């Protein structure tokens, strides 16, 4: 027993300092970050390559729905790169929600159409705009099997103009040359006004039943005078017709009744583009793709007129053949608008998405690569670019064979909430573009074995 005690005692005496030290030991190494200052002789190198081909083309996509967008697009402008672009709107009004009590002494005064700008625009806003209003000769029913109205649809309307207005709009300040705030008013004919007035006075069925009213007044076409190009303005879709009258008395009481906007889902914009004389004048349903090399080493993106830019990376798979290739660490796509093709009047889309596409231009899932972080440099143009991290996409694509790479690529799109109401467009330079600052580039950073 004694022996054991001595032993334990002495062992403790010798090991005590060691145990104390052990107690001080922490579990983690201190954190050290050398930044770029100290490399290690054994770290893997990363090399950059921008030699892979990017095949750029302009593609024409089929029509797209424009109904129910909440926006009326009206106007026409001339774009040196995209042609004459115009938009007109078709919408419905209905009978007043509360019928006024008209007496045989009530007197009709006037009738006008009122629409409110939504402050969006594209083109030259300094010009006087002429808007014309006509009555539809056919009701707003979706054609054929369609479940919406498309940009290419149009509803027949009476060529006789009900009314027109010449107006200059300052959309950013929110007022017009009519000096009635942000509203644009179009005087309509008194014959129409008196007819509406009589219906109200007679409390006719027409102003009590929506279907009957629709049969009586099928709707409105509002369109620009094509001889006066300026800008396309956005208006709120809630256009309405206001009828003014008064009841006699010692003091005349001006009164009005509104025929409000209805069937929002049916309101749509017909958008047309005349590309004659532009580099992509031949594009259309019959000829849906034009290579950038055939259109001035550039391609043209304007989703609201149905033209998109498609990118193919036909030979990135050759990276796999590099003897030192280990892995793609990052891939960066830089899309450069051609210098001089954009201006504060012909603005670039603030956001462009990348969406996968096939040979038939069937859109696949969008890439989660952001919207391009556009930087605009009007001074020299050299720094104007959309930049994307396409690492994940390129990692997948390099594994594809050349057949697939020749077919499947990326389509530049603009975000869904604005694609059918925004006219912002971009001219994308290809790799053969005469100016380096206009050239699209794909840079692949790969980990190198050497």
């Amino acid at each position: 027993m004694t022996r054991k005690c001595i032993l334990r005692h002495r062992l403790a005496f010798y090991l005590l300092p060691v145990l104390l030290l052990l107690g001080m030991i922490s579990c983690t190494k201190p954190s050290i970050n050398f930044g770029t200052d100290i490399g290690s002789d054994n770290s893997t190198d990363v090399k950059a390559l921008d030699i892979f081909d990017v095949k750029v083309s302009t593609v024409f996509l089929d029509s797209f729905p424009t109904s129910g967008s909440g926006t009326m697009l009206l106007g026409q402008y001339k774009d040196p790169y995209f042609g004459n672009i115009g938009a007109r709107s078709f919408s419905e009004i209905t009978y007043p929600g509360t019928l006024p009590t008209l007496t045989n002494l009530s007197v009709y005064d006037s009738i006008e159409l009122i629409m409110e700008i939504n402050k969006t625009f594209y083109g030259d806003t300094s010009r006087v705009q002429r808007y014309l209003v006509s009555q539809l000769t056919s009701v707003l029913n979706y054609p054929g099997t369609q479940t919406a109205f498309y940009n290419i649809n149009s509803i027949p309307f009476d060529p006789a103009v009900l009314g027109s207005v010449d107006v200059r709009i300052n959309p950013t300040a929110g007022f017009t040359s009519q000096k009635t705030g942000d509203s644009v008013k179009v005087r309509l004919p008194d014959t129409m006004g008196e007819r509406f007035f009589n219906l109200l006075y007679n409390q006719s069925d027409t102003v009590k039943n929506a279907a009957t009213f629709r049969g009586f007044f099928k709707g409105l076409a509002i369109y620009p005078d094509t001889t006066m190009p300026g800008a396309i303005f956005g208006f709120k879709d809630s256009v309405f017709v206001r009828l003014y009258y008064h009841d006699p008395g010692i003091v005349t009481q001006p009164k009005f009744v509104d025929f409000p906007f209805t069937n929002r889902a049916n309101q749509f914009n017909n958008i047309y583009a005349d590309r004659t004389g532009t580099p992509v004048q031949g594009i259309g349903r019959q000829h849906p793709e034009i290579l950038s090399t055939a259109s001035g080493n550039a391609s043209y993106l304007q989703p609201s007129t149905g033209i998109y830019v498609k990118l193919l990376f036909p030979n990135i798979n050759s990276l796999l053949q590099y003897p030192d290739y280990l892995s793609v660490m990052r891939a960066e796509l830089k899309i450069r608008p051609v210098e001089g093709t954009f201006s504060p009047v012909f603005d670039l889309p603030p956001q462009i998405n990348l969406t996968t596409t096939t040979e038939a231009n069937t859109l696949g899932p969008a890439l989660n690569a952001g919207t391009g972080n556009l930087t605009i440099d009007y001074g020299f143009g050299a720094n104007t670019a959309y930049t994307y991290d396409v690492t994940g996409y390129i990692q997948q694509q390099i594994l594809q064979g050349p057949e697939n790479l020749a077919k499947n690529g990326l389509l530049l799109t603009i975000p869904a909430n604005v694609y059918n109401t925004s006219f912002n467009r971009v001219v994308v330079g290809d790799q053969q573009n005469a100016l380096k600052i206009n050239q699209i580039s794909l840079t692949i950073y790969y980990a190198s074995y050497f």
Partner: protein
Amino acid sequence: MPHIFNMINLNGFSSMRIFLTILFSMLLLSRGNAQNNNSPYSLLGIGDLEDGFVNRTSGLSSTGIAYRNSRSLITNNPASLSALDNQWFAGEIGIRGKYIQYSGDPVSSTNSTSTDITFKRFTIGTKLFKHWGSAIGIAPYSTENYEYTGTKPLGTGGNLIPSYNEGYGGINKVFWANGYDFFNHLSIGITSSYLFGAINTKNVIQGAPGSAIYISKNDRTFYSNFYFDYGIQYYTAINKHWDISLGLVYANEGWLNSDHEITILDIDSVAIRSKRDVGTFTIPASYGAGITVTRNKKYTFLADYRFQNWGSLRSNTTDFLYENSQRASVGFEISNKKTAYNTRFETSFIQAGLYYNKSYMVVNGKPIEDMGVTAGFGINAKRSALNLNVSLQYGIRGTTENNLIKENYFGASFIFSYRDFWFTKGRKFE
């Protein structure tokens, strides 16, 4: 005297058990315990060279090229082994705990200290013949232990990606040191070592911070070869009070055979490339000289200078360059002795030392210097065969200039030694 014999036997037995317990627990500890200290400077070549001997000279800042001691196994200069007492057998274990406080721009402000404890040495030695002292042992020759993050250029466009580096492992030395005494004034020694061990490094580069894209490069190099170093000591009494000893050590240029294997893993799991090659790593020639003077066999003054020709090596990175290493140290020791049974023996000692070491590397244009002070004491137990020697060290290594790291470190070394008669116990009463 059977009673005394009994006591000695008892104590001898229990001391041996304690000694072995310490030995095995230290071996287990050094295997099972991760090394926490982070020495980014160890990433060059074969890592941090262990130039501090954890032995009797620890408290003297490892000054001992000319040092001779009859009780301790000193391998700073193999020639000193001939000074061992005849008929004695000794075993020593050296361990060292080190606390480091790191400073400099790269160091995190919240996580800037570490402590670890490592097994540094196990040696057994004896006098094989009257003039021939011999010791065998194992000790680390170099250690590599670092972990740091950084950034790496992505191509030439100025973009950076995160990188992570770690290295661990080291080279061990199994040695057999011999010293032979001629004419009671001259000793010649040789240490034959076999160096072996693996150094592992890992570098991870990531596509972007937080990205799931990363490539790790795992290098493992196994080094091995024989290595020899030589020493000579000349010692004499100057007069009645003063003794002097002069020492020289030398090792010619040697090399390690390296077996190098690189494996590159994608996302740390799928091996995409691997390569194996063999080569050599040169250990440059080294030189050292020392002097020791002793007054009245009690007060000892020591001084050493060592030099190694690392400047002859070429680095394959521009961040690190080799330069010749130099180390100078001085020490002072007071040894308390007592006479019993007609023999003078040491009961305790205290030591102090200073050192300055210009290491073999230049990082970011700055030579890495290491300097510090040491103090030590030792007690030779009266009734036990077990002795304890403790030395403390405070030093500064590196600099905070040029985005480098300065280490303020505090070390404590423990040398446990077991000492008993060799072959026959009866000789003690000669």
